[in-house]
């Protein structure tokens, strides 16, 4: 990670944690503006932060991780894109937010099962619980890698394929992630008081926004089929070579 990106993360992380799900544009936008975050992707020449796509990934992911109540990614994207491009970039943003929120829900779940005792031991000692959480970890890992892959592709130029693939993969991770998170929490996770729903309700929303599974899989599949079977693998590797 570059030094500026580490600094960005060290700035955004505690701020987003502090603002949390309860933040609103009316009361709290100024705190984001003080750090120049809405101008993250605006170039330095134009008075912006001059961030790149990996910087954007860092901020979007942390916004997801802390279930930030303000839609900061939308503010950031609105400054630099409109129309179809905006839709595509928002799909990337939601992918990164899903990745962050899944990691947060996983951390919450692991912490909870290590605390909660039933049958005289921590729930985390039961193999059934362990195996479910392992699947969840795999899905969270896939969503994070997909978000990273899309950010890298944006840095290289055209990222239509990668954004489609990444949003689709992240969408699919929401299913196992939210299901397991709620299952291992039992009834407490179903309350308004406990923080899990701040993450899971957003995850369900983000899965639909800027392209659900059907939207992206159809678009991606159509493109792959149009290129033909013999082009799939060479195309895939040419994207990174």
């Amino acid at each position: 990670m570059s030094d500026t990106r580490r600094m960005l993360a060290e700035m955004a992380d505690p701020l987003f944690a502090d603002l949390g799900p309860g933040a609103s544009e009316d009361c709290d936008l100024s705190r984001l503006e003080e750090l120049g975050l809405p101008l993250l992707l605006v170039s330095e020449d134009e008075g912006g932060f001059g961030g790149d796509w990996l910087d954007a990934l860092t901020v979007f992911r942390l916004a997801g991780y802390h279930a930030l109540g303000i839609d900061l990614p939308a503010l950031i994207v609105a400054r630099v894109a409109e129309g179809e491009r905006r839709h595509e970039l928002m799909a990337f943003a939601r992918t990164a937010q899903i990745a962050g929120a899944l990691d947060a829900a996983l951390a919450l779940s692991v912490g909870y099962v290590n605390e909660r005792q039933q049958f005289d031991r921590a729930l985390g000692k039961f193999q059934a619980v362990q195996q479910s959480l392992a699947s969840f970890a795999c899905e969270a890992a896939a969503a994070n890698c997909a978000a990273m892959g899309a950010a890298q592709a944006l840095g290289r130029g055209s990222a239509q394929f990668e954004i489609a693939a990444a949003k689709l993969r992240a969408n699919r991770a929401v299913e196992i992630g939210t299901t397991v998170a709620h299952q291992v929490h039992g009834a407490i996770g179903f309350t308004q008081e406990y923080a899990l729903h701040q993450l899971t309700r957003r995850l369900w929303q983000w899965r639909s926004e800027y392209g659900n599974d059907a939207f992206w899989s159809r678009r991606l599949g159509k493109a792959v089929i149009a290129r033909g079977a013999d082009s799939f693998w060479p195309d895939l590797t040419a994207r990174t070579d």
Partner: protein
Amino acid sequence: MQTFVTEAVDWPDSAPALREQVCALVVEHGERDPVKRANSWTKADPGFSRKLGEAGLLGMTWPAEYGGHERSQLERYVVIEELLAAGAPVGAHWIADRQSGPLLLRLGNEELKRRWVPAIARGEAFACIGLSEPGSGSDLASVRTSARRDGDGWVISGQKVWTTGAHVSHFMIALVRSEAGSERQQGLSQFVIPMDTPGVTVKPIIDLTGAHEFNEVFFEDVRLPASALLGTEGEGWKQATAELSLERSGPERYLSSMVLFLELVRHAEGKDDPALMEMVGRLAAEAWTLRLMSASVAAKLARGEDPALEATIVKDLGNSYEQAIPQLVQSAIDFDDADAEILRAVCFYLLQVSPSFSLRGGTREIIRGIIARGLGLR
């Protein structure tokens, strides 16, 4: 919590040229039948392996002194993913090139290294893995095949099972109990056993598809010189498990059914069928993601890190993907349709083989147990 730290993979500049080299070799000497291109890393073709050796595509990262080519780990990664995506018959040398050669170079004495490593790099020596026994599957620490000292040397007695490629291999690296009465992970050592040593017997096990890929291997008082001990006596468990990240995260853990996906795309060409588009899109997205994940682990291994948790995650997701492809294809395609003949043949083959994907190299349950430990649950 971030269980899988991803970073940009720095693909080598030589990648396009390497891909072209592999493709040319595969076009000339590879397998044409799509059914035989499925799960191709268990398909042994010694002639093809020798061609790769001649082309400098085996032992790519090893020192020139031992017949290697001193290329980078990621250059090797490019070559193996091309071979697998093309369904090339790489089974004969796969294990030797992936793990036995590196293990010998890391821990082997000079005699072992000179005897085996250059021959592996030429595509002339093949290896098999001797871990599982009749009483020792997932619970590997219960192995009972024994090595006892005899003068300067050793005598091996016992049995291994499910040994892939034992019948085409020149040597086995076996995990055995070298200290009588020792328990579990203690008292285990690794030995390099030439398959033509008197007392070694290989018996085929035919799998449910009718193929002969794995075997039983019996050891009846097999005498070995002192130099057959690999690494340190008593350190066998640590040595054997250290290789697992290499074994678990490679592209072979998600590409075994790639040929079926490609046939699905071919079948969908010109059909304008939204259901097929969705399925193709979903499977393409997964392939793209898994490739990034697997390459990211390779990049970490190349830097000398041991991304053990990431490697197991790649195996679990990759195996599920390889298994999902034939299931999804069967659920969607009308196999009574004459135009689906190839798709049907590949699909039925993979439906039969795919249960093994989440068994070989550690079962799904064992892999998820390791992930759970990585999460701090055990």
